């Protein structure tokens, strides 16, 4: 049940971000789909596989976003960025960044440092997920065109 609710709302949120970023109108639902896939992969791997490890889960989520976005971009011959941007947004560690700032405000610097490190690790793993997916996709498609 949680996954149904989360799937629906991550789809909705990513579609809305498609509107804010002004995606082409006929690609809005695709943006939403990419976002939902990314968030569900993140959520499922965090809670079911990795015992709440958000860093590795973010890597998997971003990886899934980039793969699906790439497949869409090959299919519709549009730049990949149109699909990936809205999909990445739910993975951004906004909550942890907020907690960092809040703890700094309350002069709890030790806790703030822990949150800041987590933010850094999660952003890094999102970046790695995006880049790894891109490299792998490129390798596969290069092989295919070479075989033809």
């Amino acid at each position, binding site marked *: 049940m949680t996954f149904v*609710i989360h799937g629906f709302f991550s789809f909705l949120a990513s579609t809305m971000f498609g509107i804010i970023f002004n995606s082409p109108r006929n690609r809005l639902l695709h943006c939403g789909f990419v976002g939902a896939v990314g968030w569900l992969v993140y959520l499922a791997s965090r809670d079911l596989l990795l015992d709440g490890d958000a860093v590795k889960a973010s890597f998997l989520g971003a990886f899934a976003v980039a793969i699906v976005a790439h497949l869409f971009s090959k299919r519709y011959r549009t730049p990949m960025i149109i699909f990936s941007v809205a999909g990445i947004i739910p993975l951004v560690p906004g909550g942890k960044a907020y907690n960092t700032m809040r703890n700094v405000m309350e002069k709890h610097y030790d806790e703030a440092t822990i949150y800041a490190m987590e933010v850094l690790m999660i952003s890094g793993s999102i970046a790695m997920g995006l880049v790894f997916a891109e490299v792998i996709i490129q390798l596969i498609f290069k092989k295919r065109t070479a075989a033809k």
Partner: protein
Amino acid sequence: MNDAREEMGIDACLLAGRLMMEAGAETYRVDDTMTRMAASLDMDGADSFTTSTGIIFSPGGQRRVKLTSIRKRATNLEKIARVNAISRLLSSGDMTLEEAYGELRKVERGNFMFPFPLQVLAAAVASASFLVLFGGDWQNMLFAFFVGGIGFVVSEKFHEKTRVKFFSEFTGSAVIGLLSLASVRAGLGSQLDIIIIASVMPLVPGLLITNAIRDLMSGHFMAGISKGAEAFLTAFAIGSGIALILSFQGVGM
């Protein structure tokens, strides 16, 4: 190729590059698009140097080098898709240079943005959805909806008026902090933290962050660092806006 046509070809390449950069495309894609267009126009040895504030384009041979500066940047994925489609058609020979240049000028003049009320509604719905994703209670969705929408309006309107991005994001997030605090203090909403995080999401510089990473990884260090700086500045503005409100939290309210 005669001079006038050559001039138009160079202008078309630069215009395409500028439009994509203004709309928030990745730097390697801008370079790639311009080089492809130049190759299809028989400009041998064309090369370009792209940063997030300007493009230098050299058409190769005896032809003159031109540059264009990029003053405004706004996320507009539709423009990226259109310019990309035009450059594809030009490269495949389905479109003449004159047609392509005309189409690019149309894209330059066009706005293509969704109507502002729809964008505000989108920001509001997105904020409410994020509240659920971040584990908030259902009854707080309404507050995230309104606070997120109002925060987006404030940030956009201030940006229109002042043209200083840092200030508009700071004000937007301060308003979000204030309204969230007010709703919790009035006893209507609970979970102050989650309402604030969800409402702030529409202001988060998502495109800049992904682009900065992409550019750095593909070796465009100049553009990557400058986009990263812009993203950091935005995040800092949002954080300090919220911090300002939270620092008054304990004061007699």
